[in-house]
């Protein structure tokens, strides 16, 4: 019996449909995740004069560049070595030899960060050998660093690619460290390395540096793409506009310690640092979103640096707490759907719980067992988390069913949530990657104390905007 349009329109909103939707095992529909090389070139963009290079099909690179440029409204330079059918048969050696030569001569990078597309991975190209041969053939100078990472789209997601590339770059640069020199020795010991993770809000880096500035803790961001992905318009275009200086990255292991502000996108990098960098404490934590997680960060970094938390920072914190209590009544008891990358989702949920908001549908496309366990613990720790359910490894078509059968008041996630939010008739607060339908969101921090204020502002004002738009005359009040 064929159903009519009207019938199907009703049916896709039902509990029955939701059950069928959750039964599927093979097809993935609207997953909120991108693929590895996008994360890899994102990580590479955070180093000074570094050219991301994708070994494989060229179409992938065109997609990554477009995708990143839409989110940041910034140029994003990456080359591909354009493998085609003949490379599928004979391998991509010639592409690497010619590609490295051209990239080096034309774009004069100080470092070329090589990641791979699926094609190169399926045919099994040996990057180390190929790069070696390119050096022998004189494509590139002997000493030009070319860290590489295997980043097929059929493993993990963009956050995995970020991790792999960052680790590869740090490992490569670390080997270039001159053991004897410690000119900056004493200076270095007071520096703390900060790894932001795959963080689409560039202002987060600036917020962390601001807070550490208040605390008097010197830091090195690994890798810092804030000036690359938020560069000034001066009338002159420069391809390389910032990034962590390679000299600093080479000596990063001499610094006092390392903290990564995301767990899932830095697992291998942190493991590498813990194992290979001598006398160098390193750990990762969930992003400092909201007051509590920011407090955790502040406490950890002050322990690590051996510097007590300054009065000035407490004042800064106090203003955020003031904003939170001022606005609590607008968030308390409100029901939320949250989706995105595991770290960000953890941070948003933690923030909502401390505001008295109720996360209901919590969804990620990826997520390790550890993430699931820790997220369950977080939800269980609060009376406001009791109504929540975690869906790790799900997609936005699942989310739509959840919203239609068990409604919430607001959704938080990236721009891809807009169809589900529209069908559910709720506002979408845009946090995450990519945000391609609003301007300047990446210029606002969502971490640190200022990040808490920003999230409160966006969420509460969206509710109040809805209220004003939908009020009848009698309830249209000046005071809210």
């Amino acid at each position, binding site marked *: 019996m064929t159903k009519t349009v009207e019938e199907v329109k009703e049916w896709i909103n039902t509990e029955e449909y939701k059950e069928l939707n959750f039964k599927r095992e093979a097809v993935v529909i609207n997953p909120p995740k991108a693929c590895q090389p996008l994360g890899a070139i994102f990580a590479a963009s955070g180093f000074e004069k570094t050219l991301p290079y994708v070994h494989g099909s060229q179409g992938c690179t065109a997609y990554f560049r477009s995708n990143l440029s839409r989110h940041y409204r910034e140029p994003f330079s*990456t080359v591909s070595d354009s493998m085609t059918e003949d490379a599928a048969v004979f391998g991509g050696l010639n592409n690497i030899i010619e590609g490295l030569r051209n990239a080096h001569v034309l774009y004069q990078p100080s470092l070329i960060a090589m990641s791979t597309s699926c094609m190169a991975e399926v045919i099994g190209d040996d990057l180390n050998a190929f790069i070696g041969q390119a050096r022998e053939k004189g494509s590139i100078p002997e000493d030009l660093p070319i860290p590489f990472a295997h980043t097929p789209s059929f493993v993990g997601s963009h956050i995995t690619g970020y991790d792999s590339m960052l680790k590869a770059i740090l490992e490569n640069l670390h080997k270039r460290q001159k053991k004897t020199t410690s000119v900056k020795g004493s200076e270095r010991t007071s520096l703390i390395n900060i790894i932001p993770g795959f963080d689409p809000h560039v202002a987060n880096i600036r917020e962390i540096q601001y807070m550490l500035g208040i605390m008097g803790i010197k830091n090195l961001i690994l890798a810092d793409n804030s000036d690359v992905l938020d560069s000034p318009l001066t009338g002159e275009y420069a391809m390389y506009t910032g990034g962590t200086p390679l000299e600093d990255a080479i000596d990063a292991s001499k610094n006092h310690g390392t903290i990564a502000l995301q767990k899932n996108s830095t697992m291998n990098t942190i493991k590498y640092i813990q194992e290979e960098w001598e006398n160098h404490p390193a750990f990762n934590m969930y992003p400092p979103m909201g007051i509590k997680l920011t407090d955790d960060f502040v406490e950890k970094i002050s322990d690590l640096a051996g510097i007590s938390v300054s009065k000035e920072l407490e004042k800064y914190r106090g203003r955020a707490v003031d904003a939170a209590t001022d606005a609590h009544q607008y968030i308390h008891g409100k029901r939320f759907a949250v989706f995105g990358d595991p770290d960000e989702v953890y941070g948003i949920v933690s923030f909502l719980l401390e505001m008295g908001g109720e996360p209901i549908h919590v969804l990620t496309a990826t997520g390790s067992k550890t993430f699931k366990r820790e997220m369950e613990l977080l939800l269980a720790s609060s009376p406001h988390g009791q109504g929540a359910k975690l869906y790790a490894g799900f997609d936005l078509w699942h989310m739509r069913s959840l919203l239609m059968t068990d409604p919430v008041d607001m959704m938080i996630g990236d721009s891809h949530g807009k169809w589900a939010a529209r069908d559910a008739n709720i506002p979408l607060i845009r946090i995450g990657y990519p945000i391609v339908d609003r301007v300047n969101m990446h210029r606002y921090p969502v971490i640190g104390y200022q990040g808490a204020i920003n999230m409160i502002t966006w969420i509460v004002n969206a509710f109040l905007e809805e209220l004003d738009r939908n009020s009848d005359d009698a309830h249209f009040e000046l005071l809210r």
Partner: protein
Amino acid sequence: MLTIEEGKKIIEEVLEAYPEKTKLKREKHLAVHEEACSTCGVKSNVKSAPGVMTARGCAYAGSKGVVWGPIKDVVHISHGPVGCGHYSWSTRRNLADGIVGVNNFVPFHFTSDFQERDIVFGGDKKLEKIIHEINGLFPLNNGLSIQSECPVGLIGDDIEAVAKKTTKDIGKPVVPVRCEGFRGVSQSLGHHIANDAIRDHIIGTKKLDNKTKYDIALIGDYNIGGDAWEAKKLLEEVGLKVRSIWSGDATLEMLQTAPDVKLNVIHCYRSMNYICRHMEETYGIPWVEINLFGPTKVAESLRKLGELFDDHIKANVEKAIEKNMIAMEKTIEKYKPRVGGKKVMLYVGGLRPRHTIGAFEDLGMEVVGTGYEFGHKDDYERTKDYIKDGVIIYDDVTAYEFEEFVKKINPDLVASGIKEKYVFQKMGKPFRQMHSWDYSGPYHGWGGFEIFSRDMDMALNSPTWQLVTPKWRQAGK
């Protein structure tokens, strides 16, 4: 406009930066237009040099992203790993009427999300299951297409067999498309492969009802920002009946019944000339190229169409031109003083590197450089009708070359894509995206020209450009 000699000198200077081998490759793709010189064309549709930062995409982008993606009642499965479908998810602005998730599947990303085990063991079983799951969850789909990503072709999956079996199982067409990204040298082969798949599996499988002598198909309009709706309005105003659009806001049925129309009217020649040639050879349907940008070309195109029909249509064409020209003249009157004399450099795909030139000229602007991402020889041949001596032609221009050309030629406006946009805006150059209409549009037809004119004015005359240099750095301070 540069002289031919100046142009040649600029090209020579730009090529200097390349290693010898690449220089020899690239110089064949760069030229200054010289009408008297028949051998001065550029080389095209060959492999991009590795490592130079080409803007080109891949066959998957040409098939799923361009040709198939806009067909709204068909579910397009991005078959393979998650990335390709993610990046092409609603990023081409193919507007479609219909209820999302019910009978319109354009703003979706359906993926088989390959994992390592699928690479090792093959994805055919998974694909079969996917097709059944989709058909169960979206019962009003009228068919499915399988858009192959790179790994599918490398691991030796037999998607044709799965398609054949599932077509029987579900009683709807399931079309395998071999558009793996490593095939060919750009999007272009993807268009061809997509056309061939439609030819082999879809076309002519249904008859058109209520045929008339004015039935036409509009081929190669993807309804970017509503372009196809504007085109349809303009064609129907003169009495033609647009029975089928390929493939903006299209239904499967439109593609099935296309061989029953009287004439194929093609806009994007590059991506769909194949199917026009096929319909001409197999069904004897003539085809004609038109240009929907700017009143001069629109009027020319309508008259060209009129010639292919009868006096009734011819009379309608004249009436429509007369009527619409009033508004067009007003638009030109308003904007020409603001943008006239400004120089433009174009770099786009498909038909736009030549087709939009007329619209700029209607506003008194001058195109001083143009090039195609994935054009062929026939595109460059056709371009000659649009340009004057001294225009710089660049095929598959590299990021480096484009920057250098813009610095040396110093146009007032650059019109290209998202990857280029912010490079030139950082230089303080007004810019418009000409793939997506910069989230504006439509640009086709009479109505489109008004929007086009407004947008070019906005880009060129935005007061924000005056903010670039602070007053303490301005000359004389």
